[in-house]
């Protein structure tokens, strides 16, 4: 459904952010990208969103190359990024301007119920907590029923309890229309909770280090031994990805030292 073909991205300043990434994502799959900082997770997500252009390779969504933002792709950012001058319901309805006011109202009311914010229609974003704001952002992204949902560390700024409850909201919403989801996270537990497949990435240049299939069936019990085992496996892969990188850094430090 979604595929990356030898995708590379080099920024204008010479940063080699991604190198020859090839992945295939099935329809309805939840894919998590994890990895140390600077491994190109966010760059990859921006390319899929059509906010940046790849330097080489292509991204195909149902056989069509993504060159710009698309109506059937929803994005949830790390920050809620709500429009402060719009009320909660106007924010959620932002992508529905082609519908009549009546249709919009129905959809918005339904979406707000789904994220547990019924009755907050008239509030301003400022009046909401961080978790509530992010729920509005989730509703805004999902209300257009995208085929593909992209999330860039959407829960990283929230406390553990809020995060867990948002995971629940998100999975419930996902179960309704089963969009394909690509999410970036630095939280391995989050990846194991949500994803069907976990891609571990490695920096300089950003590339795929390892790939883990999540064997756990939904709903997942965070306290079960199998969850623990999967999480440990993912952590181990992440650790290896970071360790493999270290010697290289040492070498550059040494070379720099020699040069002195």
């Amino acid at each position: 459904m979604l595929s990356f073909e030898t995708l590379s991205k080099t920024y204008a300043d010479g940063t080699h952010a991604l190198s020859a990434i090839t992945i295939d994502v099935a329809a309805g799959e939840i894919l998590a990208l994890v990895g140390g900082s600077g491994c190109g997770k966010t760059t990859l997500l921006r390319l899929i969103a059509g906010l940046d252009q790849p330097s080489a390779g292509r991204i195909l969504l149902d056989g069509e190359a993504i060159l710009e933002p698309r109506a059937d792709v929803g994005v949830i950012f790390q920050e809620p990024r709500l429009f402060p001058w719009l009320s909660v319901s106007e924010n959620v309805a932002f992508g529905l301007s082609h519908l009549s006011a009546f249709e919009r109202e129905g959809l918005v009311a339904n979406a707000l119920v789904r994220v547990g914010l019924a009755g907050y229609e008239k509030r301003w974003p400022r009046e909401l907590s961080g978790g509530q704001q992010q729920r509005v952002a989730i509703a805004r992204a999902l209300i257009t029923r995208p085929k593909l949902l992209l999330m860039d560390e959407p829960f990283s700024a929230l406390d553990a309890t809020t995060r867990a409850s948002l995971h629940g909201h998100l999975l419930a919403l996902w179960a309704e229309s089963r969009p394909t989801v690509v999410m970036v996270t630095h939280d391995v537990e989050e990846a194991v909770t949500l994803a069907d497949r976990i891609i571990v990435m490695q920096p300089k240049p950003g590339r795929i280090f390892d790939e883990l299939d999540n064997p756990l069936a939904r709903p997942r019990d965070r306290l079960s031994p199998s969850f623990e085992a999967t999480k440990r496996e993912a952590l181990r892969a992440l650790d290896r990805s970071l360790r493999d990188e270290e010697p290289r850094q040492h070498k550059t430090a040494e070379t720099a030292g020699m040069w002195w």
Partner: protein
Amino acid sequence: MSALEIERAVAGRTPVAPARASRRFGLAGWLLPIALAALWEMLVRAGIANGRLMPPPSVVGKTLWSLAASGELLTHANATLWRVAAGFGLGAGAGTLLGALTGALPVARGLLDPTLQALRSIPSIAWVPLFILWFGIFEASKVALIAVGVFFPVYLGVAAAIQDIDRKIIEVGRVFRLGRLAMIRRVMLPAILPAWFTALRSGLGLGFMFVVAAEIMGASEGLGYLLVDGQQLGRPDSIIAAIISFAVLGKLADGLLLAITRPFLAWQDLGRDKL
């Protein structure tokens, strides 16, 4: 009325803390001026001070009343307000237009901004002789001077506001595939609204500053004329009456602008009470 003063006016948003303080202490702010006025009144009445150069409040009040009763005050206030309104309209319009242009288009910024910044560093009063040559000694030169005064804070405020729009929120607009016009209408315009209103308020304040200068330099009516007239006739009570009228008019105009713009900023105007 130098560039420095304009800068200060632009930066000088109404601070939040004093507003809160005045709310908590209610009318406490009135105590000092009323006490001073009463003290001065008593000193003059007791014959301790003669009050010729600084007339006591009762005399100023009487002058104000007689000016109002004869209709003179209204004529002068009208003339002044008309000049400020015309100058403000022209200056704010041009400032908004050019500010939007240089804020949004790098080409326009490269072409126009250096020249405008250079013009900004000219003390605006220096234009007066030239304006009088160009526009004559009547209304046009006065309005032009006021317009110049209003222009710069509005121009700077709008240009800065556009460049300060959060890239992240623009990106949300891109994700929702807004076209150029929709992006301006639905994202950029609301985003700069608060800064634009602040710039307009600064501009209006400067407009009142410049109308005084324009009227002092030659007018047959207007509150500024009342100032000069009072000086020439040796009537400090008339000068103070004019100063008070200026203060009241300026405050009223600012309050009007605030009242007009406030409904658009309802989303911003909270939290102060709740936090």
